[in-house]
């Protein structure tokens, strides 16, 4: 293969290079054979040179959607390396550390190699190996028997973090006849629910390319997809001179790149948002025309927010009232300004209030679906829409009424992903048996003991639960309580389905054969579906038939798609703005089909919520334990504890067993302000004991200047050891590092009444261990 002769493009002239450490080189990667970042031709040439095979596919190391394009290299059937795919619009050839570490994850000693059947007591973790078909048979027999005796609603499925297979999980539940999809009450739905019922849609895309002011609010724009478009947009906005204001309790690299830090107490974002509305309303910083034409309830809002002054909010949020006022003013008065909200606002009883207030703020200041603001709808393009795998059309009111613990109130079910019960609520119903007990829970790609608040109650529920099926690629924290364990293939061992990201569709291609006696999660659902008699809904058990069915609107089969190794990118079309008329008329997915917005206007005053018995305007609610809510606790527990949703090298509660990643963050680490630490004689590296009214953990301290002195924070999801590095598992309950045991699960205090978000804030004391 001939090598292109290159000129010395990268011998950059001196002035440009010296500016590099200041202003940065606008450098395109040049060169015929770049190492670790390839085009298809380059990847194939590199593989040929090394005697390897190369497969274009998607990285598998994070979510929610299919993600970065990669070239996966294998030699003699062993997966050895990953390089970034230049053709991918998501990552444009770059990769984050997780992607680079992919082979280590695939070959982890924690991988499950064959199906297991429990032989000891629940919790003992004693299993015997069984064959795949036998495992399917046992599950099917149990489900058939329980369906007959208790009704299909006795089956619940836990929601993993959203993936392409989520809709296939829903499909199985619907084919079975159960509404109980246990959604986590942890992410995204909390946000989208509040936005949609206020604005008709969730304006999740912020126009970074044009924003002059950006509020990054409870969001981590870097860790959620470090190699992806969002990061480039963020860095480019900064380079363009956008003023970036980061609203969050601690300084992470995104705050380092921002212009201003608003150090807010965890769980108090609703108070901040309400105070910002107070400023906007009282100083009349509104888009008068928009409010008059497109808003319902502005007068009620004006009255309502009087009590939420910046001085009031300062006491609760810890943010100086002057800063609150300034941020409100700069946002409201800058024509092109956007608010990017994240998961940080989703774990508290005032979660829906915070998002509603922010939605209202975006609307009344005239930033909705305008250049530089929060945009409605995805970036349009000419791609056809594939046929959905979901069977949403089968939902009935009867099904909704059977939800064992609705994630959103029944009048608002189903929501956009389908009907859902709160994830934690499923376990609660096992214990309370109200309104009825769930009899089987299937846990695909999810570990309840680590991922939800209330692990102590989850353990009790798992001991009592009749039948628990864990479906995963590697050992999970819940496994000792499983009756059947189904191993599944990683996406690198899976050649289906296709994936879509924006205007790009590509087939998922298998890199290596499965390492044991297992199949993909898709095939598990197909096999189980067929065995249960739902074959007609599961394409006779064939993923190929399924994919071809889904691709019909594209006029091609999956084999046709595979002929485009790096997929197909459809032409983008120009975005339109101010799509108020159509958006505000959108029908909601609930059984009644009623529109999100009864007045076809922004629901500042929300009559839908009022009719259902909830507050029509956003309000402030305290977390179960907080400095201002429960001051009597602060003598014993003076500090606020909360946790991070994302991190630089791990996705959620997995990957702690991947050595290259674990080396970078080896220990569960508590971020603590140096002054707070020195008061307690604590230095970086000391093990410390953190105690709340509900539990205690032991973690390593890191003195962290970029944190509120009254707050400590750590990453959730610490349980698993790493055999290669000699790290053992941590205990799951008291004395371990599982932050989720620290929070209240009091039904009267810990839940957002509307979106069942569970608080991840509490009060703690920290001492040297």
């Amino acid at each position, binding site marked *: 293969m001939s090598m292109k002769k290159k000129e010395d493009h*990268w011998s*950059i002239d*001196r002035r440009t*290079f010296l500016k590099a450490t200041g202003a940065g080189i606008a450098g395109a990667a040049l060169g015929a054979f770049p*190492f670790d970042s390839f085009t298809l031709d380059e990847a194939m040439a590199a593989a040929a040179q090394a005697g390897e095979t190369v497969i274009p596919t998607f990285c598998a190391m994070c979510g929610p959607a299919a993600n970065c394009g990669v070239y996966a290299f294998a030699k003699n059937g062993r997966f050895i390396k990953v390089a970034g795919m230049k053709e991918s619009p998501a990552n444009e050839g770059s990769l984050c550390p997780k992607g*680079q570490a992919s082979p280590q994850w695939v070959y982890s000693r924690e991988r499950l190699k064959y199906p297991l059947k429990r032989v000891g007591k629940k919790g003992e973790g004693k299993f015997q190996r069984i064959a795949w078909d036998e495992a399917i048979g046992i599950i099917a027999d149990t489900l058939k028997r329980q369906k007959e005796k208790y009704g299909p609603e006795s089956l619940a499925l836990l929601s993993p973090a959203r993936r392409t297979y989520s809709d296939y999980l829903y499909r199985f539940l619907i084919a079975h006849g159960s509404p109980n999809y246990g959604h986590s009450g942890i992410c995204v739905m909390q946000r989208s629910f509040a936005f949609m019922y206020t604005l008709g849609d969730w304006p999740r895309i912020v126009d970074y390319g044009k924003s002059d002011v950006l509020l990054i609010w409870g969001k981590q724009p870097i860790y959620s997809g470090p190699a992806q478009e969002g*990061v480039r947009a963020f*860095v480019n906005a900064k*380079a363009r001179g956008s003023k970036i204001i980061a609203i969050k309790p601690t300084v992470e690299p995104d705050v380092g790149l921002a212009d201003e830090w608003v150090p807010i107490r965890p769980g108090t974002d609703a108070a901040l948002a309400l105070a910002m509305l107070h400023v906007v309303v009282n100083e009349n910083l509104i888009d008068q025309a928009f409010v008059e034409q497109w808003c319902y309830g502005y007068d009620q809002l004006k009255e309502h927010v009087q009590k939420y002054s910046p001085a009031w909010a300062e006491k609760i949020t810890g943010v100086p009232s002057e800063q609150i006022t300034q941020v409100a003013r700069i946002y409201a008065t800058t024509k092109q300004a956007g608010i990017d909200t994240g998961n940080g606002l989703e774990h508290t009883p005032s979660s829906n209030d915070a998002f509603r207030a922010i939605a209202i703020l975006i609307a009344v200041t005239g930033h909705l679906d305008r250049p530089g603001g929060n945009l409605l709808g995805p970036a349009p393009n000419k791609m056809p829409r594939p046929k959905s795998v979901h069977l949403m059309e089968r939902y009935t009111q009867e099904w909704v009424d059977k939800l064992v613990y609705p994630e959103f109130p029944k009048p608002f079910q189903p929501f956009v992903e389908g009907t859902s019960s709160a994830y934690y609520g499923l376990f609660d119903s096992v214990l309370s048996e109200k309104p009825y007990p769930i009899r089987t829970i299937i846990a695909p790609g999810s570990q309840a003991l680590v991922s939800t608040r209330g692990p102590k109650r989850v353990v009790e529920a798992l001991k009592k639960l009749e039948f628990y099926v864990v479906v995963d690629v590697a050992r999970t924290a819940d496994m000792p309580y499983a009756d059947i364990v189904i191993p599944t293939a990683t996406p690198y061992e899976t050649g289906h389905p296709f994936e879509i990201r924006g205007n790009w569709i590509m087939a998922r291609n298998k890199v290596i054969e499965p390492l044991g006696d297992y199949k993909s999660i898709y095939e598990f659902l197909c096999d189980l579906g067929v065995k249960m008699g739902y074959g007609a809904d599961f394409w006779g058990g064939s993923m190929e038939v399924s994919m071809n069915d889904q691709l019909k609107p594209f006029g091609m089969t999956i084999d046709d798609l595979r002929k485009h190794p790096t997929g197909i990118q459809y032409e983008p079309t120009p975005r339109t703005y101010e799509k108020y008329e159509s958006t505000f008329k959108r029908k909601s997915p609930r059984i009644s089909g009623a529109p999100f917005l009864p007045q076809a206007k922004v629901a500042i005053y929300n009559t839908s919520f009022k009719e259902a018995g909830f507050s029509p305007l956003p309000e402030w609610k305290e977390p179960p334990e907080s400095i201002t809510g429960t001051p009597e606790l602060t003598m014993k527990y003076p500090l606020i504890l909360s946790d991070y949703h994302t991190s630089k090298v791990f996705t959620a509660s997995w990957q702690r067993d991947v050595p290259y990643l674990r080396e970078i963050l080896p220990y569960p680490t508590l971020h603590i302000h140096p002054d707070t630490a020195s008061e307690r004689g604590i230095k970086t590296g000391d093990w410390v004991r953190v105690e709340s009214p509900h539990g205690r953990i032991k973690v390593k301290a890191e003195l962290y200047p970029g944190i509120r002195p009254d707050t400590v924070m750590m990453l959730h999801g610490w349980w698993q050891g790493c055999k290669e590095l000699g790290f053992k598992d941590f205990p799951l309950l008291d004395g371990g590092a599982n932050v989720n045991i620290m929070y209240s699960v009091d039904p009267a205090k810990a839940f957002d009444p509307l979106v069942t978000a569970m608080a991840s804030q509490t009060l703690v004391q920290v001492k040297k261990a």
Partner: protein
Amino acid sequence: MERRREMSTEYGFSFAKEKCIQCFGCEVACKSWREGEFGVRWRRVYNIWQGRYPKVKNLSASVSCMHCAEPPCAKACPVQAIQKRAEDGIVIVDTGKCIGCKACLKVCAFGAPQFGANGKMQKCDMCFNQADLSREFPPCIETCPTKALQFGKMDQKEKIALEQDIQRLMAL
């Protein structure tokens, strides 16, 4: 002061701190492609604090080896195991000669010398054996999502300026 060698071109890394998102992609790309040993970090990503609460910022730095214009490690090595290549300025260690005394580590401002299970010094070598640097970039460069980390040819003066820049950054 020693008379400087005549100006020559050599390879070097440059780093734009206002683009670095501290993702650690470069650090793990290096380990993954060069099959790095646990506990050894040829490339290291640093978090650097500035200011006092509430006016706190952090900066990021990605440093491997600066392949200095005048490498102090080469001077300090008692057995001349470290050499700067004339053809491209890359500083490499001959592990056969290395006695593991760590004198190089003491004088390096960047933490470049690493010591693994065998006690011999190892460090970034710009992937000169793996890549044709006239046409290719090392994996740390290629993987960077924001192109904060760059690679190219420069003269000695530019190299020295870069060394000082990174030293200042790390001293913060």
